[in-house]
């Protein structure tokens, strides 16, 4: 029926601008989907809503502290000395700092000598917030300004007799 058909054609003509608009939006949507497929990292969503590869990347960071097991593998004489005293529970790197580089290359990377006045005071300087049973002293009164290793051997801190150890140095 020619009349009805002309009516239908007119409808399309009258919404032509909307159809064009819809076409623009459809193209934009397709472009977005294509972009997304190209740009989103492959491992995204592997374990959850995140880049799965990030887990392995985080785990692959180099370590700075070797861990006392590594130190003890070589420094067995220190281990024996520590076993006789209270500092057996203190990890090597707690005082000596991060030594993974030294463990990697013991010859060229040597740990610096420690200043016991600073290192020991961090734990043992008296403070009202420290647990009462923990050994702590007011260092000014206790040693009158002398370095701690004047009398104490850090790897075996208890002084067995009134004799001093080698003055000013660690054994």
């Amino acid at each position, binding site marked *: 029926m020619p009349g009805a058909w002309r009516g239908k054609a007119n409808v399309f003509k*009258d919404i032509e601008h909307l159809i064009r608009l819809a076409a*623009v939006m459809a193209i934009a949507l397709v472009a977005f989907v294509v972009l997304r497929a190209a740009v989103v990292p492959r491992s995204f969503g592997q374990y959850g809503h995140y880049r799965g590869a990030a887990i392995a990347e985080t785990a692959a960071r180099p370590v700075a502290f070797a861990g006392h097991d590594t130190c003890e593998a070589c420094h067995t004489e220190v281990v024996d000395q520590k076993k006789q005293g209270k500092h057996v529970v203190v990890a090597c790197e707690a005082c000596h700092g991060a030594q993974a580089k030294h463990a990697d290359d013991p010859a060229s990377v040597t740990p610096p000598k420690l200043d016991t006045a600073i290192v020991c005071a961090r734990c043992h300087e008296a403070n009202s917030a420290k647990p009462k049973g923990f050994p702590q002293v007011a260092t000014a009164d206790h040693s009158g300004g002398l370095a701690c290793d004047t009398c104490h051997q850090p790897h075996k801190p208890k002084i067995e007799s009134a004799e001093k150890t080698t003055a000013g140095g660690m054994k």
Partner: protein
Amino acid sequence: MQIPVEGFMYPNEVELQWSILIVLYPFITGLVAGAFILASLERVFRVEAVKPTYRLALLTALSFLLVAPLPLQLHLGHPERSLEMYLTPHRSSAMAMFGFVYLWYLMAVLLLEIWLDYRRDIVEKSQSSTGVARLVYRMLTLGSINLSERSLRIDERLGYFITVIGIPSAFLLHGYVGFIFGSIKANPWWSSPLMPIVFIFSAMVSGIAAVMLLYMFSTRLRGREIDMRCLDKIAQYLFYIFVIDFSLEMLDLIQRIYEADESFRSLDFMVHTRLWVSQVVVQILLGTVLPIALLGVMQIVTVSDAFRKRIYVLAGCLTVMGIFAMRWNVVIGGQLFSKSFLGYTSYKMAFATREGLLTAIALLILPFIFLLVLVKLLPPWPDAGSVPASGATPAHGTS
């Protein structure tokens, strides 16, 4: 730079995370939502009196909406990665929804409504103008120059339908910002189910006041008569919505004071000291109580048109300033106190950096530049006279 801390704060809390740019963002989207609601008053709720501001309100909304993502982009540590919010949005995050809500509102509501309302003008201008302007108008027609009765009627119906959808969309555009804050259980200054509602109502207040001021200013600039019936109607709606907004904020405050939970003592001290000027003086007294009083009195007493206009200008300016202060107090205030409730920090606003005061001022000026371009491109006012001709007009919007 050393930031002075009073009391105790967790070490990582001392430096503020969200700066003045994040104060700007809800302020700007608030203006968008509010301007749109004013436009919808006429289109959907048939408040004929405000018709002269219909197109201006839409263009104002668009100008601000275009600027809205800028403070966010400038604030990000990696703005070049912001596309990730579209590519891999985390559905549990309110912030991830920003990209889609914004895009929806821009494309499917605002641009579409403006395009449909202006289509006749665009097609006519694409045939009558020359040079670059002609090119721009021709692009805007999308190649279709059909202006038949039926096509215009279809535009009208579709425009109405879009405005109806646009109202909840505008609420969503700004309400979700309130939810971004309101859903953070870690922060008691923000955490509240009232937050989205308060944001929406204060947005409406600021948007309506802004359009009212722009209407008065632009009409004066063009040397025309201000339609007082329109202006009075706008001021009336501003008054009603402001009363609701104020009631909501007072309800929140009273409940907090009454319940006095774990955070109360810390927050109360903060309001009395660090937020005293911005919250009590600027936001509440000058920015809310005074404009409500002024607008309320105008509802009751009869004064000359000239006097009323001045009162409206004053009330409008105070309102916009007060709503900005509200955003400041929410965003900055929420970061001034420690989550341990034992201390406070300060906000050291930079000046000429990416997140500094200068940038903020520039971002506030930019929408008006966009508006200037838009009103040149798509004039929102009738050519002859400013009072709309009574009687039927064939296409909606050419008031």
